[in-house]
């Protein structure tokens, strides 16, 4: 997928100006944390589960050489063909080769952020294949020619009216009302059912890979991934190295965290484990199965200080709790992964220079770290990326100069207190009558959007000293 993160600020401004879409995002930001919180409370000792899974994930990454070799061995013994893709383009070409070997014409795809990352759909289409996204959200955005706005609900930015217009335009089914969301789902169901039954190849992702047995875990509510995995004659699982876990029980422990954090359910409707092709005695299932393991910089992340990012389980909780994501919307981030996890991952999987705005798209409120089921210190990683940007002289010279000046003053407490006390005192005198400023020199970034409140007169340190003196 083409990187557009250079335009984050411009896109965020446009997103904020769309009042209807902003109201929809606000509604989601109110709703999703509530359902997650209820599910976490109902679970019992969620923190103990979180720490258990964190230990397992860290252990898996620390010993990834062992577990990767084990997974490959078991998956191969199960009858799969295991492929390694160093880059996005290599994954695409492996998948196209498999499709061409089978003279395939139609591909049914389950939701896969990895294949969004590699731009697989466009590549397969250029190779002459018809590719149908079957997750309802992914299907909607595919029909609309858009990209996902959220890693769990890719089309949550669209209203039901917009989906209705889209279906009326794209499905040649004559006159119909399609008034309710139920009607829209029903129509997608009947259109997609034929695609499932006709597809030559099914492509799905994996929420976990189990080293001990070579199974892959797939978690869905719609069941579309399972239809892709069971009906077509060839199955291709596209996933990444960092999904590997030691045992089956580790995968279900991750699943406990994942579904509660993502949708607030105790278990998704379908949690399936696939080991390979159809057995001799079976009536159905794919005749041939492939697992494509994508690296695309992940082994570099494994060797870096950002290793903890590989513990991410793609639940979307950090997006749902992020004020910047709510304000700017997923598309502003300009790539596959939005929100806090995306602001860390996108620079690491692309370049720090082209994604300079993302690590700065953070208020340091810390909610993402609080709710992250993998306990990833997202604000710390974002800060480290900002630090790295500064070290590598990325960003406008004016911005960097300002930061350097601030750092120089802040490192001298006496000077800092002297300057802030004087400035606050002057601003207090100037703004006392009105109580706020409409414009301030050097602060247009603030005052262009909202008034700057007039300071109360005394700095924190002055008040602190005065109270301490009173007490003495």
């Amino acid at each position, binding site marked *: 997928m083409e990187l557009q993160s250079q335009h984050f600020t411009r896109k965020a401004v446009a997103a904020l100006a769309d009042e209807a879409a902003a109201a929809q995002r606000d509604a989601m930001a109110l709703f999703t944390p509530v359902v997650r919180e209820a599910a976490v409370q109902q*679970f*019992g000792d969620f923190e103990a589960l979180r720490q258990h899974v964190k230990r*397992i994930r860290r252990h898996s990454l620390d010993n990834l050489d062992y577990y990767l070799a084990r997974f490959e061995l078991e998956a191969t013994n199960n009858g799969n063909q295991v492929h390694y893709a160093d880059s996005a383009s290599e994954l695409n070409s492996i998948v196209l080769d498999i499709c061409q070997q089978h003279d395939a014409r139609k591909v049914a795809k389950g939701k896969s952020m990895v294949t969004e990352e590699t731009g697989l759909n466009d590549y397969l289409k250029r190779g002459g294949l018809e590719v149908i996204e079957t997750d309802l959200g992914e299907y909607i955005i595919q029909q609309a020619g858009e990209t996902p706005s959220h890693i769990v609900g890719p089309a949550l930015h669209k209203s039901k009216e917009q989906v209705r217009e889209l279906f009326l335009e794209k499905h040649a089914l004559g006159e119909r009302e399609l008034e309710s969301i139920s009607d829209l789902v029903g129509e997608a169901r009947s259109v997609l059912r034929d695609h499932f039954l006709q597809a030559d190849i099914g492509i799905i992702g994996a929420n976990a890979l189990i080293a001990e047995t070579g199974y892959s875990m797939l978690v869905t509510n719609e069941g579309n991934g*399972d239809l892709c995995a069971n009906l077509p004659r060839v199955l291709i699982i596209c996933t990444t190295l960092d999904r590997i876990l030691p045992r089956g029980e580790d995968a279900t422990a991750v699943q*406990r965290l994942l579904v509660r954090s993502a949708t607030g*359910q105790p278990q998704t*409707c379908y949690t399936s484990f696939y080991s390979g092709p159809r057995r001799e005695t079976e009536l*159905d299932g794919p005749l041939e199965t492939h697992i494509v393991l994508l690296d695309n910089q992940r082994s570099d992340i494994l060797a870096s200080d950002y290793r903890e990012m590989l513990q991410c389980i793609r639940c979307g909780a950090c997006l749902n709790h992020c004020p910047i994501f709510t304000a700017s919307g997923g598309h502003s981030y300009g790539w596959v992964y939005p929100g806090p996890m995306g602001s860390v991952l996108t620079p690491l999987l692309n370049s720090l220079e082209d994604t300079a705005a993302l690590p700065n798209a953070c208020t340091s409120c810390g909610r993402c770290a609080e709710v992250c089921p993998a306990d990833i210190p997202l604000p710390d990683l974002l800060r480290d990326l900002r630090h790295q940007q500064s070290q590598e002289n990325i960003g406008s010279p004016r911005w960097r100069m300002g930061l350097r000046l601030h750092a120089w003053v802040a490192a001298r407490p006496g000077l800092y207190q002297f300057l802030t006390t004087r400035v606050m005192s002057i601003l207090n005198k100037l703004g006392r009558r009105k109580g706020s400023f409409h414009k301030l020199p050097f602060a247009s970034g603030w005052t262009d959007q909202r008034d700057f409140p007039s300071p109360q007169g005394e700095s924190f340190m002055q008040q602190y000293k005065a109270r301490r003196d009173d007490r003495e």
Partner: protein
Amino acid sequence: MSSESRSRIMARVRHASLGQNAAAIEAQLDDFGVAPAAELPHDDTCVAFMINVLRNQGSIDVAPQRVDVVKAVGQYIYRHYRSHRLVAGNDPHLAAMPWRDGGVLPRFGEIEPGEPVALSYAQWGVAETGATIFLSGRNNPARNNLLPEHHLVVLDVNQLLPDLESLWQQLEPAITGAERPRALFCIAGPSSTADIEAQLVCGAHGPRAWHVILTGEVRQEQLDTALDVLSSKKNPGGS
């Protein structure tokens, strides 16, 4: 080339890993112990399972005897389709049911497109999640779980497990054997989606309804208790 990529990736991963031997890795893994499971909503495992099935948008019939099962199936199909037909997997438990007593005409095998009802025999149920568990195989075609409008599941309450860890223990003989089952399905609800405006709709691609028929040593009072627990949670201040 994939094999060159494999070598490069493996080399980088090896470089970034701790380089411990297998015995040390396995010992460390054992030290982590068992993951905590979700608290059950009731002390009785069967009632807890029922509560979770209902929370998962499923419905339940209690049918202690085999004749009760076929009657429950017959009434269900008649209620929804005014029909006596359904497709059932080749599971011997289903084949041995006295279908005529319920007025049901099952066809054993794979579901064909357009057939509305399928019946499956679940190998286990998990109380923690309210899931019914199936292993793929000749007795249980995967498409029977995925293509019908209504998915009916028979589960013997003796096969109820408290949590997912118990499930993996039960699975151990199958998954450590020479040929592992192709697929393990944990089904916990009808196919659903909330992809449009976060509104939940059942019947996204697979079954619109998921109906669990519990058989064996199970009583109607247990289902009544499950329903009471759910209604008291919905109306905590209600009389």
